C-alpha cells in the first residue's frame, strides 16, 4: 500500500518535467552551447586573420593575467565589491521603505507610484546619455558621467537655496553628497519597489486585524507580521539588486570588459567568466543564507 502510494507520488511529480521541458532544451542548446564556446575561447589566444579566427591554446594564461598581471582589473573588482555591500543594503532599505509608504491608503498614491516607476521606462542607455546633455554639459557624456551631471543638476538647485540662507558649506557638501546617493539609488529601485508592493499585498489582512485586536502597536506589528512575511520578497529583491548592479552597463567592471571585447576578445571572455563565477558564488551564498530564514505562508 505504502509502496504504491509512493510510486504514484513520484509519477505525479514527473509531470513537472513537462512544464520545464522548454527550459531544459533552451538551456542546453541556446544558452550553454554559446557559453561553453566562450569558455573555450577564453582558454585560447585569438588573432584575427584574413580567413577567420586564428586560435592557439594557452590554458589558463588569460585568467592568470587578469588576476596577477592586470592591476586595473583586480583594483576595480575590489572597489565594485566594497561598493556593492553598502549600495545593496541602502537599496533594499529604501525600496522597502518607499513600498510601505506607497502601500498605505492616501490621496494621490497612484500618482506617486507612477512617478517612482518612471526610471524603469527611461532606463535605456540612449536616453540616459541624453540627460547629461540637457544639463548643458559641453559634450555627450556616457555612463557614470551622465549620472554625475544629472545629480549635480538635481541637487544644484537645492544647494543654491541653502547657500542663500547662509548655512555652513561643509554641512551642505555632506548633505548634497547624500542627496546624490539617494538620486542614483532612486533610479535603480523602481522594480524593487513594485516587487515589495506585491509582496506587501500578499500578506493576509486578517493577521493585521488580530494584531489590532490584541493591542499591538504599529512598530510591533511591523516586526512581528510584516517583516517576517516579507522575507521571501526581501530575498528576491536582494538577489535581483545584486545581479542588476553587477551586470549593469554603468558598472565599471562591465565597461572595462566591454572595451576589452574590441581589443582582445579572449581576455574579455576570461574576465567575464571570472567575474560571473564570482557573482554566482556570491548570489548562491546569499540565497543559501537568507532562504533558510525566509518564512513562507503554508
Amino acid at each position, binding site marked *: 500500500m505504502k509502496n504504491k502510494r509512493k510510486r504514484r507520488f513520484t509519477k*505525479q*511529480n*514527473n*509531470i*513537472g*518535467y*513537462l*512544464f*520545464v521541458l*522548454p*527550459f*531544459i532544451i*533552451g538551456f542546453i542548446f*541556446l*544558452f550553454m*552551447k*554559446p557559453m561553453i*564556446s*566562450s569558455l573555450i*575561447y577564453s582558454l585560447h589566444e585569438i588573432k584575427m586573420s584574413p580567413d577567420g579566427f586564428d586560435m592557439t591554446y594557452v590554458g589558463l594564461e588569460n585568467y592568470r593575467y587578469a588576476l596577477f598581471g592586470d592591476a586595473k582589473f583586480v583594483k576595480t573588482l575590489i572597489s565594485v565589491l566594497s561598493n556593492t555591500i553598502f549600495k545593496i543594503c541602502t537599496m533594499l532599505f529604501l525600496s522597502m521603505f*518607499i513600498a510601505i*509608504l*506607497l502601500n*498605505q491608503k*492616501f490621496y494621490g498614491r*497612484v500618482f*506617486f507610484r*507612477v512617478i*517612482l*516607476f*518612471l526610471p524603469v*521606462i527611461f532606463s*535605456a*542607455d*540612449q*536616453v540616459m546619455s*541624453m540627460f547629461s*546633455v*540637457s544639463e*548643458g554639459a*559641453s559634450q*555627450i557624456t556616457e555612463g557614470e558621467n551622465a549620472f554625475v551631471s544629472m545629480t549635480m*543638476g*538635481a541637487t544644484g538647485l537645492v544647494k543654491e537655496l541653502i547657500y542663500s540662507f547662509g548655512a555652513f558649506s561643509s554641512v551642505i557638501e555632506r548633505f548634497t553628497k547624500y542627496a546624490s546617493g*539617494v538620486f542614483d539609488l*532612486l533610479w535603480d529601485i523602481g522594480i524593487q519597489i*513594485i516587487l515589495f*508592493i506585491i509582496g506587501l*499585498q*500578499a500578506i493576509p*489582512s*486578517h493577521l493585521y486585524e488580530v494584531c489590532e485586536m490584541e493591542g499591538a502597536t504599529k512598530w510591533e506589528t511591523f516586526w512581528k507580521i510584516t517583516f517576517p512575511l516579507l522575507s*521571501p520578497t526581501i530575498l528576491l529583491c536582494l538577489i535581483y539588486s545584486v*545581479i542588476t548592479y553587477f551586470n549593469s552597463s554603468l558598472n565599471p567592471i*562591465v565597461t572595462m570588459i566591454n572595451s576589452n571585447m574590441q581589443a582582445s576578445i579572449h581576455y574579455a571572455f576570461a574576465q567575464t567568466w571570472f567575474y*560571473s563565477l564570482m557573482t*554566482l558564488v556570491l548570489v548562491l551564498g546569499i540565497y543559501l543564507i537568507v532562504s533558510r530564514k525566509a518564512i*513562507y*505562508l*503554508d
Partner: protein
Amino acid sequence: MMQTSNVLRAKKMGSKASATLYKVFRLLLLIGLSYIVIYPILSLFLGSITLPEDLMDESRAWLPKNPTFTNYVNSFSYFKFFKHAGITLQIAGISTLIQLIVCSLIGYGLARYSFVGNSFLFGCVVFTIIMPIQTALLPMYLDYMQFDFFGIGQLIGVFTGTPYTVNLTGTKWVYYLPAIFGVGFNSGLFIFLFRQFFKGMPKDLEDAGKVDGCNPFMIYLRIMVPNTKPVFVTVALLSYIYYWNDTTLSNIMMMGTNDKPRMLYVKSLMASAVIRHRDAIRVMAENQAIALMCVAPLLLLFIIGQRFFIESMDRTGIKG
C-alpha cells in the same frame, strides 16, 4: 470618571495631531523623492523644446526663452519614427507574450513539482540570470548564422551529405526563439519571479482543484494564473520594456538589416547625426528630441496600462 474621559480625549487629540503630522511628513517625503525622479526627465523635455542657439545660454535656468518644436520637426526629416516603432512594437509584443506563457509554466513546474533535479534546474535558472549576455554574444551569432535546429540539421546532414542549416541573423527569430525556450531576455529573472510567487500560494487551493478533478495544466490555468495576476502584469511590463530598450542583443544580431529595432536604429542614428549636420549643438538638441520620442510610445503605453498595472498590485487574490 470625568478625569478619565478627559485623559482619553487628550490622548485621542494627541494621536490625531501626530497622525496629521505623520501625513504631512509622508507627503513631503514623497514629493521630495518624486522631485528627484522628475527633475532630469523634465529638464530633458525642456531642453528638447529649446532652440539649439539657446541651449548653451548660461542665463537659461529652467524655462526656454522661446519654446519651439523645431528640434522635433527637424529630426523628423531623417528620423523614421513610425517604421522602426512598428518593428519594435512587433518584436517586443510577441516576445513578451511568449515569455509570459513560457516563463510562468516553467516557474510553476519548478515551484510545485519536486521531481529529481528540480533544485539543479533552479540553479541553472539562476545561472542564466547571472551570466551577462555579452559573454555569449559572439558564439551565439555564429550559432544563429548556421542554425541547425538543435542538432537535427546535423543529423539530416549525415544522410544527405550536407547539414541542413538556416541563417537566422537579421530575422526576428533571434528574439522569439530564445523566448520560446525560456532563455530570452531576462527570462531567468521572470522564471525566478514566477517560482517565488507560485511557491507563496497556499497548497489548499491546488488540493481543492485536484479534488474537483482538474489535471495539472488546468490547475495552473484555472487556479494559479487568476490568483497571481499582479506578477503577470509586472512581468509583461518589464519584459516589454526590456525588449523595447535593448541594444546589446540587437547590436550584433540586427546590425546588417534595414529593419532595425528602434533603440538600435537610434543608436546608429545618433552616431551618424554628427556627420550629417557638422553642428554639434544642433545635433545635441535634436538628439534630445529623438531620445524623448523613443520612450514616448513606452510612456504612453504605461500611462494607458497604468491603471491596470497599479490596481492589479492591490488585487492580489489570496487574502487569508
